[in-house]
């Protein structure tokens, strides 16, 4: 009894504004509020609103039977709350049906998994709490930014208590194996792994309106036939895609909404098929094997690797610089600064800097807020230079560590701020204050 498992990615970055050199040291406004609002509003109109209405309609029409899942990045949720609160409410309405699973990712849609394990964990926790806050349930399924996955990342995720994780079904990793089964991570201790069926997912997400494609136009029947063909050779068809596929990447006039509306019944024409959420799939089917993925994979571009965000000197140097700020930012104790810094970690900024100009270049360009990869590098350099200056200017909060009362001597601990720079407090003096 195979399942069709839909997972939709919803994400909007905080795009950086064109931050001129003269603003360095002068303006802490890094993001293009106007453009972000406009894009959020535009995508809401083209995609989020009509698609949420459609999904709600399908769920109500097929109670208990039609199921889907979402991962909405924290920065997207924030922008919905500020710019298009009705969109957030419609997601909450979907959550209330009980037929929708909400998945956790890094709050900032960042590449922290590759650079800073501590940040990775903190951003996951923050997202988990946010999802629980808005949608009422603590997620147990995790998907990393752009489905970036490796044995090591899976380890960290399982440590945090997640039961299911999603990633790309990359050919070079799977070899002869099929993505249509439940797997386990190489060092797994019970966490399940669901792999994207990229062929069928991309038929909808990328090829649906491509007139040069031999299977264009894609009818619901044709697609359902392809899904049905796995019967007997798989347990689940994992259709993972950007939610913006509906109405934004594939415009309404391509027929994408009608396709989706008719899909459930077409799938059910084969009596053994059902719809399930990722955590249901993980529970329903036993894992068939462990997969060894030592080097990171992703769902992006032809290479399904990290080359969309990393690899050219502009990307590598910028991201390394961003993560260098961690200690200083956290020591400053400034929540606003921390939030801004984390928004700069969003993977999109590095995606814009990509200079691969084969077929993927077109996709990058379509999604870029800037004229060229160099522009976004220059802007980020300006912003990070400003951040550097702000940190120099902000009064340094001296981190203090106070022993529990029962271990304290009578003298009061040294207060923060009374230490001179570089002075080392000797052992035993005044409680135990340490200084960076």
């Amino acid at each position, binding site marked *: 009894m195979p399942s069709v498992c839909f997972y939709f990615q919803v994400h909007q970055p905080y795009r950086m504004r064109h931050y*001129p*050199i*003269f603003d*360095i*040291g*002068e303006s802490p406004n890094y993001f293009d509020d106007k453009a972000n609002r406009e894009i959020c509003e535009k995508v809401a109109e083209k995609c989020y609103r009509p698609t949420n209405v459609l999904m709600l309609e399908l769920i109500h029409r097929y109670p208990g039977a039609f199921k889907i899942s979402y991962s909405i990045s924290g920065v997207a949720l924030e922008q919905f709350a500020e710019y298009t609160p009705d969109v957030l409410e419609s997601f909450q309405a979907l959550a209330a049906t009980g037929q929708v699973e909400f998945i956790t990712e890094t709050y900032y849609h960042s590449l922290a998994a590759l650079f800073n394990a501590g940040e990775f964990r903190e951003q996951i926790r923050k997202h988990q709490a946010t999802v629980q806050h808005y949608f009422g349930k603590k997620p147990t399924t995790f998907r990393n930014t752009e489905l970036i996955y490796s044995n090591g990342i899976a380890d960290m995720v399982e440590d945090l208590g997640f039961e299911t994780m999603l990633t790309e079904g990359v050919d070079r990793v799977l070899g002869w194996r099929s993505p249509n089964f439940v797997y386990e991570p190489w060092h797994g201790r019970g966490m399940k792994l669901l792999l994207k069926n990229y062929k069928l997912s991309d038929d909808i997400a990328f090829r649906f309106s491509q007139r040069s494609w031999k299977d264009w136009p894609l009818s619901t029947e044709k697609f359902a036939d392809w899904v049905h063909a796995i019967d007997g050779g798989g347990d689940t068809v994992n259709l993972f895609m950007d939610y913006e596929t509906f109405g934004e990447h594939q415009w309404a006039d391509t027929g994408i909404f009608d396709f989706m509306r008719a899909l459930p019944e077409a799938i059910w024409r084969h009596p053994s098929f059902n719809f399930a959420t990722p955590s249901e799939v993980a529970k329903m089917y036993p894992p068939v094997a462990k997969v060894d993925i030592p080097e990171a994979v992703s769902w992006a571009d032809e290479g399904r690797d990290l080359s969309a965000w990393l690899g*050219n*000197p*502009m990307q*590598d*140097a*910028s991201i390394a*610089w961003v993560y260098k700020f961690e200690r200083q930012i956290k020591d400053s104790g400034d929540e606003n600064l921390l939030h801004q810094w984390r928004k700069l970690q969003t993977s999109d900024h590095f995606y814009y800097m990509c*200079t691969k100009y084969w077929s993927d270049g077109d996709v990058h360009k379509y999604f870029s807020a800037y004229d*060229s990869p*160099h522009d976004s*590098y*220059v802007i980020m*350099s*300006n912003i*990070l*230079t400003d951040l*550097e*200056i702000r940190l*120099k*200017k902000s009064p340094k909060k001296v981190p203090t560590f106070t022993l529990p009362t029962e271990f304290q001597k009578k003298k009061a601990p040294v207060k923060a701020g009374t230490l001179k720079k570089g002075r080392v407090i000797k052992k035993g003096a005044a409680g135990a204050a340490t200084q960076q």
Partner: protein
Amino acid sequence: MLGWEIPPFNSGGLGTACLGLTEGLSSQDVDIRFVVPKVFGKLPFNHMKVLSAADYSGESQLKALLEREDIQQEFITHQLAYGARISLDEKKQLLVEHINQNLPVAPHIQATWYAQQAAAIAEQTEHFEIIHAHDWFTYYGGMAARDVARRKGHNVPFIAHVHATELDRSGENGDPAIIAIERTGLHAADHVVAVSHYTKELLHRRYNIPRAKISVVHNGIPSHKQPEVFDIQELKKHHKIVLFMGRMTMQKGPDYFVKLAKAVTDEDPNVRFVMVGSGDMEKRCIEESARIGLTGKMLFSSFLRGNSVDRAYQLADLFVMPSVSEPFGIVALEAMQNGTPVLVSNQSGVAEVSNNIMKVDFWDIEAMKGSVLSALYDPNFHAAMKQGGYEDLQNLTWDHAAAKMKAVYEHVLQSMQPLQLQPAYAS
């Protein structure tokens, strides 16, 4: 006067120089008509009349010129691949469109088109005593206008003013077509004006122009405009700042600036380098800086306009112009005007006009590094450069340049021979 651009619709120093020089000349009672390929909007000055070449229809002259310059006509039709299928008028229209859209058009076509329009303008202008043409694009125009005047019976001199040559812009990889136009124009000119002795020598050596035919008139800065003074930007309080400003093309040596940044910041990581400008080497410079570890030490800005330019100079503790070959380099004077000490390459004309400019060979990164560090960290030296720069600028105004220019005009007019009478049967 035949020009290529005039601020605010300019892409570089040529427009700035033409504006400064014409302001100086008109304050000395020289009446100027200034021709540009096209006027794109309202111009914020009224010391001279600016004519838009694209707006003139000069069919008869066009026909005459096209018939005479049959090699060029061949060239045009060949380049546009229309052969004889279209009329002359249509060809002209196409040329205008090509030039306005900045489509890559062969230099001969651009120059010929401009020459046709210049001839039309000369035809419709009652009286002019001198034809003064700025850089290669306009040299054919100067020749064509002179032909028109001669036909009317006036022997009007054509002065070619060299702000830059193709050899400066592109070194040995220059476009041979442009070099040919330059050579033709400079030899045809009655007199040549160079913006520096550096350029005069280059014209003599590489274009075979006799030294006696070349006068040097150095560029200047406007005396009446003092730059707006900006507050000290926070960035400057934390870092020493070294500035590059100019087109990012091979001529301006932006790649040497990147190398300099690497050498200096390896020694002193607290210095920040700033590159302002656009050009075909911009992306390469950005990628190269990231590749060699200058991220965070090298900042970029695209081309700036208006008072943002002064703001950038004031942001800097030192201005560096590492040009590979720079006929003059007005930017250096602008930097001095903003109180920013200047380091230029020995291969620049501006090096001739002030002793308060540091001079180093553009390729000598070690020497440049030494000069940069001493300029940044020796307060006495820094102050002396700044003060000396202000003083030198007193004599480096456009008024001075215009006075010299006017003297050249007078000299050239005196040396012109009256036209020989043509026997009536010759026409």
